[in-house]
C-alpha cells in the first residue's frame, strides 16, 4: 500500500505543469518585457519534460498499476492516466519549443506559454478525473485557456473567428454536459464514477429516462472535446485560424484528453453490462465512429489548404480512436475488450507525436510565409529537405504506412476490433485509411515532385522549430519498434479499467 508521501508523488506529473505555470506567472510579474521569450519557452518545455519523465518513471515502476485513489476517490492515478499525462507532457514540450520561433515577433509571450501549461494541467487532471465534478472542472480548465490561445493572433481575422466558433461550440457543449451531469446526479445521487456505476441497477431504475438523457448529454460534451461528430464543426475553423503550434497542441493533446476522460467515464462509470438497457452507448459509438472517420476523411480529401486538410484528418483519427469504445460489445470477452481499448490508447499516443509534428511543419511553412495551399508547398523538398523528410514520415505514418508508429497502432486497433467481434468496424477503418493515403500523398507529391511556381526564397532555418519537428519525426519512427516493446503498458492500463 502506498503511503501518504507517495500519494503526493503520484501527482508529480500534474504538479510539474502547475509549477511551470506558477513559475511563468512569477517571471511575467518581475520581467514582463523578456525580449525573445526563450526563457519562458524553456520553463514551459521543462515543465512538459518533467511531467513526461515523472509519468514515465511512475508508469515503468508499476506503483500505480492497480490504480491509486486520491482525495476520497475524486482523482485516480493508474496506468491510463500516466500514459496520457506522458502524451500531454511530450506535446507541451514540443509545442513550447516550436513556439519560440513562431511567436518571436509577437507580444504577450508569457501569457501564451502560461495558457499552454494551464491547459496541460487541466488535461493531466482530466486523465485522473474519477468523479463527474472533477471531469467538468478539469474540462473547463483545459478548454478555457484553449479558447484564448486560438485567439492569440488578435489582429488576425481568421484567428479571432476560429476562437469565436471554438468558444461558441465549447460553451454550448459544456452547458449540455453539465446539465447531463446534473441529470445523472438526479438519477443516481452521486458524482463519483464508482458510486454512479453501483447505483445504476438500484434507485436509478426509477428514472431510466433521466439517466439515459443525462448520459447522452455527457457523451455530447465528450464528443466536443474529442472533435467527433456531431460536435466537430469547430475543429477545422479553430485549427485553421489558430497559430499552427496551438493547432498542434489542440489537435493532439486536447483530443487525447477528451478520449481519456471518455474512456474512464464510460467504462468505469457506465459499464455497458448494466446500462445497456437504458442507453446502449456501444451502439452509439459505433455510429459515431463510422460517421466521424468517414466524414473526416472525405472532407480532408476535398481540401486545398494543408492546415485544413490536417484538421479534417484529425477528425478522421478521432473516428479511429472511437473504435476503442465502439468495440466494447463483450462479444470477444474481457481480454479482447482490453486489447482494443489499449490499441486505441496506443493510437492516441503515436498520434500525439505524428500529428503534432505535422502541424509544427505547417508552423514552419507559415514562419517562412509561403502560403497555406498544396501548391504553395511545391518544390519545398529541394529548399528544406530535412524538414520535408520529417513531414513525409508524419503524413505516411498518419496514413498507416510502415514508416512510423502509426502503422502498428492502426494494426493493433483494427486487429483488436476484429478480435472484439466487430470486424466490420475494422473494415470501415481500413477503407478510410486507404482513402486517407490519397490526400496525405498530395502533400508529399507537392513537396518532392512538383516544381515551385517561383523561387521560394527561404533564408532562415529556425533552430527551435526544426528541433521540435525533427524530435517528433525521430520519435514517430522509433515508435515503430518501440510500440512492440512497450505495447503491454497500454493493454495492462486498459485491462485494469474493467
Amino acid at each position, binding site marked *: 500500500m502506498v503511503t501518504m508521501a507517495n500519494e503526493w508523488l503520484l501527482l508529480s506529473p500534474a504538479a510539474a505543469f502547475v509549477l511551470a505555470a506558477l513559475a511563468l506567472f512569477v517571471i511575467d510579474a518581475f520581467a514582463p518585457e523578456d525580449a525573445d521569450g526563450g526563457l519562458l519557452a524553456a520553463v514551459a518545455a521543462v515543465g512538459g519534460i518533467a511531467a513526461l519523465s515523472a509519468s514515465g518513471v511512475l508508469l515503468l515502476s508499476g506503483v500505480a498499476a492497480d490504480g491509486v485513489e486520491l482525495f476520497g476517490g475524486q482523482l485516480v492515478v493508474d496506468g491510463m492516466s500516466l500514459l496520457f499525462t506522458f502524451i500531454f507532457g511530450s506535446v507541451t514540450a514540443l509545442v513550447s519549443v516550436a513556439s519560440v520561433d513562431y511567436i518571436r515577433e509577437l507580444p504577450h509571450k508569457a501569457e501564451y506559454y502560461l495558457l499552454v501549461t494551464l491547459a496541460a494541467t487541466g488535461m493531466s487532471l482530466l486523465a485522473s478525473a474519477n468523479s463527474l*465534478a472533477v471531469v*467538468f*472542472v478539469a474540462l*473547463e480548465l483545459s478548454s*478555457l485557456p484553449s*479558447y*484564448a490561445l486560438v*485567439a492569440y493572433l*488578435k*489582429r*488576425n*481575422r*481568421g484567428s*479571432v*473567428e*476560429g*476562437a*469565436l*466558433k471554438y*468558444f*461558441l461550440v465549447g*460553451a*454550448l457543449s*459544456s*452547458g*449540455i454536459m*453539465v*446539465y447531463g*451531469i*446534473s*441529470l445523472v*446526479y*438526479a438519477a443516481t*445521487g*452521486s*458524482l463519483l464514477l464508482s458510486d454512479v456505476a453501483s447505483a445504476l441497477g438500484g434507485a436509478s431504475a426509477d428514472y431510466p429516462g*433521466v439517466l439515459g438523457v443525462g448520459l447522452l448529454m455527457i457523451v455530447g460534451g465528450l464528443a466536443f472535446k474529442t472533435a467527433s461528430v456531431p460536435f466537430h464543426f469547430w475543429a*477545422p*475553423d479553430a485549427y*485553421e*485560424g489558430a497559430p499552427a503550434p496551438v493547432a498542434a497542441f489542440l489537435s493532439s493533446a486536447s483530443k487525447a484528453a477528451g478520449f481519456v476522460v471518455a474512456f474512464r467515464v464510460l467504462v468505469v462509470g457506465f459499464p455497458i453490462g448494466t446500462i445497456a438497457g437504458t442507453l446502449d452507448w456501444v451502439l452509439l459509438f459505433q455510429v459515431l465512429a463510422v460517421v466521424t472517420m468517414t466524414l473526416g476523411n472525405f*472532407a480532408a480529401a*476535398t*481540401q486545398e489548404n494543408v492546415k*485544413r486538410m490536417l484538421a479534417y484528418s484529425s477528425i478522421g483519427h478521432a473516428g479511429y480512436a472511437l473504435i476503442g469504445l465502439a468495440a466494447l460489445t463483450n462479444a470477444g470477452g474481457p481480454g479482447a475488450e482490453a486489447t482494443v481499448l489499449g490499441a486505441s490508447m496506443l493510437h492516441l499516443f503515436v498520434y500525439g507525436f505524428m500529428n503534432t509534428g505535422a502541424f509544427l511543419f505547417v508552423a514552419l511553412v507559415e514562419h517562412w510565409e509561403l502560403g497555406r495551399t498544396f501548391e504553395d508547398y511545391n518544390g519545398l523538398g529541394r529548399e528544406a529537405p530535412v524538414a520535408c523528410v520529417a513531414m513525409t514520415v508524419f503524413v505516411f505514418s498518419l496514413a498507416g504506412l510502415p514508416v512510423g508508429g502509426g502503422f502498428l497502432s492502426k494494426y493493433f486497433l483494427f486487429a483488436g476490433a476484429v478480435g472484439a467481434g466487430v470486424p466490420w468496424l475494422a473494415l470501415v477503418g481500413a477503407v478510410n485509411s486507404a482513402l486517407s493515403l490519397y490526400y496525405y500523398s498530395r502533400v508529399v507529391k507537392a513537396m518532392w515532385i512538383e516544381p515551385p511556381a517561383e523561387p521560394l526564397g527561404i533564408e532562415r532555418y529556425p533552430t527551435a522549430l526544426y528541433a521540435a519537428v525533427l524530435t517528433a519525426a525521430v520519435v514517430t519512427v522509433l515508435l515503430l519498434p518501440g510500440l512492440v516493446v512497450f505495447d503491454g503498458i497500454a493493454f495492462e492500463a486498459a485491462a485494469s479499467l474493467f
Partner: protein
Amino acid sequence: MVLETVPAEYYLVLSAAVFCIGLFGILTRRNALVFLMSVELLLNAANVNLVAFAFYWGNVTGQTFALFVIALAAAEVAVGIGIVLVVHRNFDDVDVTNATTLKW
C-alpha cells in the same frame, strides 16, 4: 421538509424548461452577448437540478458542485467576453454569423 410538498419531478420540469429556453436562445439569436446569456441559462438549469436533488438524496455533493458550476460560469463568461471584444474589433459587430472568412 420542502420536498414533501413539492415533488422532485417538478424541479426536473423547471430545469428542463430553463434549459430549453437557453438552448432556444443559442440556436436563434445572433448576438454573441445574448449567446453568453443563454449559456448561463443552461448552466443554471443544471444548478437547479443539482440543488434540488442534493435535498432529495440527502447529501451535499450536488450543492457543492453547483458552487463550482457558478464559479466556472463566471470564468467562461470572462473568456467569452474577451473573445467577443476581439471579434468586435476585427469585424465591427458582435453578430456571430458575420465572421465568415473561414469556409470549407
